[in-house]
């Protein structure tokens, strides 16, 4: 029977079918190390409005399949296959999975044959070609439900459309300096199935709801301020209507969130551009700013694929690890107040119980009391490093090969009151809200701009500046951290890009207020 639509419930049928196909497939093939399949079902709705005019809305679904086989005769290699499917494919799903596995298997076998030839043909440079392996993990069968108050699929499309339209209309008349606004809203459910030849069967469902506000304000004198920000959570429609207020998140509803951003943009057009400093000065950075900072200078350089040079041609390498013989593991890279980890058990965009190869997800410490201690990994990179898999192999959809990605990567909270951190500064700057990062290839230095920069004089916040930020060598910056707040917050990062083809992924970052030393970078007109 043909399905009219793709539904979340369809997973109940596709999971046993896939398990059965995998069992048969691996029984009848030789040389297989592992075969696995991921199925991603997504159902949701979204709407957008620009300058008070609705621009589009819709309800849609998708079904995607991805298979991996690691196999070979004398050496192992991996082969992958991804495909987007529709309701008409459901009756033939078993056959499609079988065909996808077959494709992956043939690719793996042919690649392994090529690799084996080069192992000797490349002489001394063939020595490091290895027979692809993956580290062992406990094999689980588990179902993990979504958390929500208002199920995204119960929200009428009209309510989504009207919300975006009404907020955009309100922004249009808010302030004559506000020249452009765009509001985007999406609320959806994803069900991820993972089945492996090892016997894993993981069934996870997630709710996502996200709002985005984009504004451009222009002063009479021609000063332009372009800002955008997201609110979002692994929850239902309540995120848009009520905001989020819990232990880790503090967001107003989308209307207030958008108005706050727009007002900031308007006020900033009247502010002077931020000055530059020749030398590092005391800088206090708020949790929103630190979310992007931890993302760029802790998260990315502690992804084990970068460590192992697999991202050299794309995202880059890591200053933390030159080679197995020359690296900073176990060495001091920051003051004793610097603590950072990735933790999929925290809520938000980076939350999950299992990654995309069935590894139970767990917290991995990167920096403990200033000492570098560990990396996010996958089963394959874990096998190379001979450490324990910690469950960070994630894809942004059901059609593509996972990569090592951040879950919730954060600075740990400290013990200082944020007000005291500012009060102790004779002269320095307070950076509020992140804007744009610019990071060195190996993340050894960085420049990040802030939404707002305030001057601190005698412990008090004073003049506000626009278009400012900080830059520093990562090591020097970490070593100079001398205060960490107790105001830990998490933020959604909806658009972390990595991979080829590019995978834009949702994840979480956060931290508390922090104080350190960095050079202040100024606005273009200063």
């Amino acid at each position: 029977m043909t399905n009219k639509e793709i539904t979340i419930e369809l997973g109940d049928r596709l999971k046993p079918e896939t398990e059965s196909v995998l069992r048969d497939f691996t029984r009848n093939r030789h040389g297989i190390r592992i075969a696995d399949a991921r199925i991603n079902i997504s159902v949701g709705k979204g709407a957008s409005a620009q300058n008070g005019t609705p621009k589009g809305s819709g309800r849609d679904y998708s079904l995607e399949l991805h298979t991996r086989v690691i196999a070979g005769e004398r050496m192992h290699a991996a082969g992958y296959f991804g495909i987007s499917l529709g309701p008409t494919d459901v009756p033939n799903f078993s056959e499609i999975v079988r065909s996808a596995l077959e494709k992956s298997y043939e690719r793996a076998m042919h690649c392994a044959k090529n690799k084996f030839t080069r192992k000797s043909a490349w002489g001394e440079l063939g020595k490091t070609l290895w027979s692809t392996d993956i580290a062992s993990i406990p094999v689980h069968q588990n179902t993990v439900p979504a958390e929500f108050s208002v199920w995204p699929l119960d929200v009428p499309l009209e309510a989504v459309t009207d919300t975006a339209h009404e907020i955009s209309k309100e922004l249009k008349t808010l302030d004559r300096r506000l020249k452009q606004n765009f509001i985007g809203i999406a609320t959806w459910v994803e069900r991820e199935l993972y089945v492996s030849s090892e016997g894993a069967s993981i069934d996870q469902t997630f709710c996502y709801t996200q709002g985005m506000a984009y504004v451009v304000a222009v002063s009479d004198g021609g000063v332009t301020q372009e800002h955008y920000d997201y609110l979002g959570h692994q929850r239902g429609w309540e995120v848009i209507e009520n905001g989020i207020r819990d232990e880790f998140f503090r967001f107003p509803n989308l209307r207030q969130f958008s108005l706050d951003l727009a007002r900031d943009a308007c006020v900033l057009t009247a502010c002077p551009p931020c000055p530059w400093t020749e030398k590092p000065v005391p800088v206090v950075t708020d949790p929103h700013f630190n979310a992007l900072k931890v993302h760029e200078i802790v998260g990315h350089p502690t992804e084990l694929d970068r460590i192992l040079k697999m991202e050299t041609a794309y995202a880059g390498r890591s200053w933390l690890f030159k080679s197995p013989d020359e690296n900073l593991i176990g060495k001091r890279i920051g003051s004793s107040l610097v603590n950072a980890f990735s933790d999929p058990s925290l809520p938000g965009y980076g939350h999950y119980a299992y990654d995309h190869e069935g590894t139970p997800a767990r917290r991995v410490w990167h920096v403990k009391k200033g000492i570098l201690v560990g990396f996010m990994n996958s089963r394959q990179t874990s096998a190379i490093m001979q450490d324990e898999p910690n469950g960070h192999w994630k894809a942004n959809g059901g059609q593509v090969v996972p990569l090592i990605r951040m879950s919730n990567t954060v600075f740990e909270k400290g013990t200082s009151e944020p007000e005291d951190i500012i009060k102790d500064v004779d002269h320095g700057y307070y950076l509020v809200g992140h804007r744009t990062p610019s990071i060195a290839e190996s993340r050894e230095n960085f420049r990040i701009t802030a939404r707002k920069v305030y001057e601190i004089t005698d412990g008090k916040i004073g003049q506000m500046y626009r278009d400012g930020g900080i830059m520093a060598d990562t090591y020097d910056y970490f070593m100079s951290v001398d205060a960490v707040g107790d105001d830990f917050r998490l933020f959604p990062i909806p658009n972390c890009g990595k991979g080829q083809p590019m995978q834009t992924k949702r994840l979480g970052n956060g931290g508390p207020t922090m104080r350190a030393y960095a050079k202040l970078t100024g606005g273009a007109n200063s």
Partner: protein
Amino acid sequence: MKTKETLAHCVYEALKYIKTLADVKEAEVFASSNLQNVARFNFTSHILSNGVEEPKSKEDFGIGIQAVFATSEGLKTGFGSESNNLTLDGVKIALAKAREGAVLDAEFVSLPRPIAAQRTLFNYHDPELMNIQDEQFIDASWKILDGAVHECLNSPALAKLAARAKKSIHRLGLIVGGDLTVVNEAVAIASTALPEVKTDESAFATVSLTAMVEEFNAKGSSSVCYRSLRDISDEAGKEVSRNAIAACGIFTESDGGGRAGEDFREPATIESGSYPVIFGPQPLSEFITNLILPALTTSSFYGMESPFMGKFGEKICSPEISLYDDAANPAYVGAKGITCEGLPTQKTHLIINGVLTDLLSSWYETQRLAEKDPDARAKLGKDPKELLAEGKLLPASGFRFNRRGRTGV
């Protein structure tokens, strides 16, 4: 991959059906089939690696419908798509989604209408590349990597560098990364205003490589585009290794002592400051792709995001600089016969001798600026209707990449 004939049949039947519906005032039907093969390279001489790391692919096909519906509230526009179903059922589902999500977009003028420009590009793809087989793809990937590795193995300069470092070459930390990507696309499109079904097929391959000699912190890159399977060679691999090795430093011939390494000059570290800088083609293309082109679209002018606001017809950079976009040139990797709105592609001169002369645009954006935006003249610096009369702002760049079938620039 679905053939363009299959896609064309779907579009033809869809349009025939849609024309029978009283509430659909305008409609555009777009069907496409896409396949992307990617092999990622990861070779490291000092860490275990796979060489060709990931032979993989992703593919999809489907139908998308943009329609204008007559409703009691006025004309509403909506878009709907359906994956993997090119039958009339699929058309009805896509249309139902478009109808359900339709909105009163006061800035919508119309779906594309015929324009004077004629299509110039037909049958420009390599059928062999369009139908590339897995084994051919994987073999081509290893061939590229062979080029990189053999260049290292046979390089006298790398041997001298290894001697200088007192290490064998595999301990110098040689890295080769990047990918071979083959993109195959087929489309068919027709609309109530442009009822003749138009089709297009394209196939291209790109090789992007980065190599390093980590011992010397030296990096090189190479980037090649191919339109034919037979053209894919190991040259990009050889080039990337040559570039990385060259970046290690220079051995001079005037070696008085006669021993390798004595007259070796490492690259100098440059102090911060202002210098004359010469950009090679690769960094230049980064600038153009990420900084310049996003500022040269009608949507960026509408949204007041361009640094060139109000500068149409004015000098915006050095007179040495001229910039054009040309999707109609079959030699280029971005060649397309038609846009995803069914209109002919063309060569668009964006900057001539430092003067801003045109913008990339889609039908929607051109119409919005010309007909609906009261501030358009101030935003552009010229009356958009006058520019249209001069043959500017033509919608030659309405494409649908990564938007689930929605049109963008």
